[in-house]
């Protein structure tokens, strides 16, 4: 089996700050994803990557950057944190159509 690790688990930022979230997987999966989870809104896709150095925008990419320097890692940057923003960011990787999720990074912006 494999595992997806997300760091940090909790992130507290200031308004306007640039914040970076990291995701590592040892499944050797090609495709990786970043989702944002807001209460009552399900998961919304921010970015995904089908291979190293590839980036594809999801429905919620505005305000975010992503980076896939290695097959095993996928980083997400909040380019300018919004005041009172509170969400969980979930990283996933997939083989075929089945996705495997990390435990999430919980973001709070003061």
């Amino acid at each position: 089996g494999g595992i997806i690790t997300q760091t940090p688990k909790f992130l507290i930022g200031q308004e306007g700050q640039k914040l970076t979230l990291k995701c590592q997987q040892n499944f050797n999966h090609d495709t990786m994803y970043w989702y944002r989870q807001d209460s009552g809104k399900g998961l919304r896709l921010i970015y995904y990557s089908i291979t190293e150095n590839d980036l594809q925008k999801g429905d919620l990419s505005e305000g975010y950057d992503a980076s896939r320097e290695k097959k095993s890692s996928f980083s997400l940057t909040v380019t300018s944190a919004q005041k009172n923003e509170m969400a969980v960011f979930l990283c996933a990787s997939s083989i075929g159509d089945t996705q495997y999720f990390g435990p999430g990074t919980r973001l709070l912006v003061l």
Partner: protein
Amino acid sequence: AQSVTQPDARVTVSEGASLQLRCKYSYSGTPYLFWYVQYPRQGLQLLLKYYSGDPVVQGVNGFEAEFSKSNSSFHLRKASVHWSDSAVYFCVLSASNTNKVVFGTGTRLQVLP
């Protein structure tokens, strides 16, 4: 455009009771359908998936789901719930031959002891 609707935001049942969580989808092509569960402060875990064939698929922990093309539905069922089943359940649609995945808004299940 694809969409997934989970009409019940919250469901409360007593331990030992049967359960059905509803999911309706909208997609003109061949859907790949999934149910994921999210326990508190954890990521999502796959319960079961449907690609084709027998419309009733079995998953982990006694869960099953039934695909209905005529009703555009993929309801999740369990014959007898346990308190540890309390979690949020997501119905997910993957459009065939694409990386497009659509999540429902989730149903929060509370099982009363």
